[in-house]
């Protein structure tokens, strides 16, 4: 169990790293693209551009969360 936990921790550190928001942003952006693909919203070129825009938007949101003003502790 100890080794399994260490193995999981290694892959978490390797892929997610010290900022989980980036991984979440990538998954959400690709999720939006997948929904658009299944809904047949656009052709290939339109979907590719939508995917690129979604990645930028979710990355910007993760940065915004990083730099948001912290509430002072009471």
């Amino acid at each position, binding site marked *: 169990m100890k080794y399994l936990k260490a193995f999981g921790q290694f892959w978490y550190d*390797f*892929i*997610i*790293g*010290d*900022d989980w928001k*980036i*991984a979440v*942003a*990538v998954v959400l952006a*690709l999720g939006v*693209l*997948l929904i658009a*693909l*299944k809904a047949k919203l656009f052709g*290939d*070129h339109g*979907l*590719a*551009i939508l*995917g*690129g825009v979604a*990645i*930028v938007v979710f*990355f*910007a949101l*993760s*940065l915004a969360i*990083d*730099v948001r003003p912290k509430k002072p502790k009471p």
Partner: protein
Amino acid sequence: MSAASWGLLIATFAACFVEMVEATTIVMAMGFTRGWRSAMIGMGAALAALAVVTAIAGYALTTWLPESALQLAIGGLLLIFGLQWLRKAILRASGRKAMHDEDQIYLDEVESARAAGAASGNGLDLFSFMVSFKGVFLEGMEVVFIVITFGLNAKNVPIAIVGAAAAVITVLGVAVALRRPLAMIPENLLKYGVGLMLASFGTYWAVEGIGIFRIGRQSLEWPGQDAAILGLIVIWFLLSRVFISALRAPEARSATTSNSTPVQELAK
């Protein structure tokens, strides 16, 4: 050699160079503090393990996964790595995160090496071996993915391996010649450049790979096909500059001299 091959060579060289500088700092701290034998054995063992991982992962990925699944998996990973590097570069250039300081990392490693106590006898110093092995292996794993993914997509893994191996030899050569941490290398700027590259290639491949979910499992097609990668590099660069300007902390604004740009700050 074609322009694409040169691009592949430069990309893997730059990515591996940055990671090797960090790994070398750790090995040097162990070598100078606790002796070179165990530190070098640890580094050698890690490089051998990385070579085995590269061969196995490369074979498994090409054999078992269809092209669009490969693009989605490796594009997604590259995108996560690239955006993490880009995020740090943006936060550093805007004054919201401390610059990566190789000298400070070296001093921290030396302190931990001394705190671990003396090695027993003339055998292998397990502390030095493990720290060196772990440092080189962890930094190298990212390079393994970059070499495999860039190499497979360009259908030229040998060139990708040459780029990475050249970086290893260059960094080790400079380290042996200077015998001190490689703090003079503009690591923050290099990380920014590699982050831009990984984010651009990652965006391209991950979006293409979403095609795995449609009938026929055909990859999505970007406008302009491969030329879209150049467009993505330009877009990510311009966006990163916009983010740096927008997020610039007030104290960083006043601390920066009027002659120095955010990118020049990263180069320090």
